[in-house]
C-alpha cells in the first residue's frame, strides 16, 4: 500500500443567484469531465443530493456532485476548484484533503 493525497470536491448544482439548477446534472458531469481531461487530471465522479445554507441564510436542497481526485498537487486542485466555482456560479465549493492508503491491483 502507498500513501497519497485524496482530494474530494463537493459541488452544489444550484446557481447562487437564481437558487435553481440551470442545466441537467448529466451536462454538469460532461463539462467537469472535459475540464478534468483538458487539465490532465484523472477523476471519479458521483452524483448525490444535498442541502446548503447560502450567505443570505436561505436553505436550499440541491443536487450535488462529489469529484474524487488522487495524486495531484494542491495548486492544481485549487485552480480547478476555483474554475468550477466561477463557471457554475457557486458561492463556494468544498475541498477536502485526506491522506489515504492506495494500491493498484
Amino acid at each position, binding site marked *: 500500500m502507498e500513501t497519497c493525497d485524496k482530494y474530494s470536491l463537493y459541488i452544489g448544482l444550484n446557481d447562487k443567484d437564481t437558487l435553481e439548477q440551470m442545466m441537467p446534472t448529466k451536462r454538469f458531469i460532461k463539462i467537469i469531465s472535459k475540464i478534468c481531461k483538458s487539465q490532465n487530471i484523472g477523476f471519479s465522479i458521483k452524483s448525490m443530493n444535498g442541502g446548503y445554507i447560502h450567505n443570505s441564510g436561505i436553505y436550499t436542497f440541491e443536487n450535488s456532485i462529489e469529484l474524487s481526485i488522487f495524486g495531484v498537487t494542491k495548486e492544481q486542485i*485549487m485552480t480547478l476548484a476555483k474554475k468550477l466555482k466561477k463557471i457554475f456560479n457557486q458561492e463556494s465549493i468544498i475541498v477536502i484533503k485526506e491522506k489515504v492508503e492506495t494500491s493498484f491491483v
Partner: protein
Amino acid sequence: MASIYNEDLYLNGNKGSLIEFELMRKTRNDILALELIGYKNTIENYDFFIEEAAKLIKSLNLDSSLAISLAISYLIKNGYFTYNKEFTEDETTTELLNREGISIIAGEGCCRNFSDIQMSIMNRLDYKTKKFYCYHQTTFLASPKNEEANHVLNLIEYKGNLYGIDIYNYNLLYRFANKFSLVSISKLTNDKLRYKPYCEMIRENTSMKEIFDNLNLFESCKNRPFIYSQDYEKIQFEINKKLEKENDRFDAFHERTKKLKKEIYNDIKGK
C-alpha cells in the same frame, strides 16, 4: 479497427462519428458559454492586452505575416507577454476555452496556447491566419488516419503560398505536400503533420462544406513555389537581429502591461 477520428469515415458521412463529434461540440459550447459569464472581466482584460500587443508589433514595421509570427514567438519566449517574465513550455492548467492564449500570460503554455495568441494578434493586425489541427507524425509505422489530433499550429500566407508556422516548436515552417499533409521545408526532418478536420469541426464550429473547401485549397497549394530552407533561415536571423535591438521597447511594454497581466494571472489561477 477504424476509429471515429478516421477521416475516411466522417468525411463520407459516417453517422457514428458525426454524432460523437456533435456531442463533443455541445459540451465544448456549454463550457464556452459558462466561461463568458464567469470570466467576463478576465476576457475583457485579455482582449485589451491583445490590442496592446498588436500595437507594439505594428510599431515594429514588420512587413509580412512570417515576420510578425516570428516576432510573436520572440516576445512569448522571452517572457514579455508573461506577468513575471518567466515562461515554461508545458501543458497548462490555466486555460480558458474562449481564449486559449490566456495561459501565456500566466507563464505557461503548449501548442494550442501559442497558436491561439498568435491568431488573436494577427487577426487584430488584419493578417489572415487559421489554425491547423493535426496529428504530428514522427514515424511511418502507424497510419495517422485513426489517430486523434495531437498538435495545432497556424497557417499563414506568405508570398503567394500557404505555410504552417509552428511558433511553439522552434518556428519550424511547413508547406503542403498534399491536401492532408504539411511537410517541413527543411530536408533535415521527415516530420509530417496530418490534417485532422474533425478537431477543427468541433473546436472552430467549421462546417463540412468549409472542410472540403480547405482540402481543395491545401491541394492547390502543393504545386505553388515555396521558400527554401536557407532563405527562411536568413529571414529568421535578420528578424531576430532586429528584435534584439528593440529590447528596451519590449521592456517598456512589459512594465506598462504588468498590472493588467497580474490581474489576468490572478483571475485564472484563482488567487
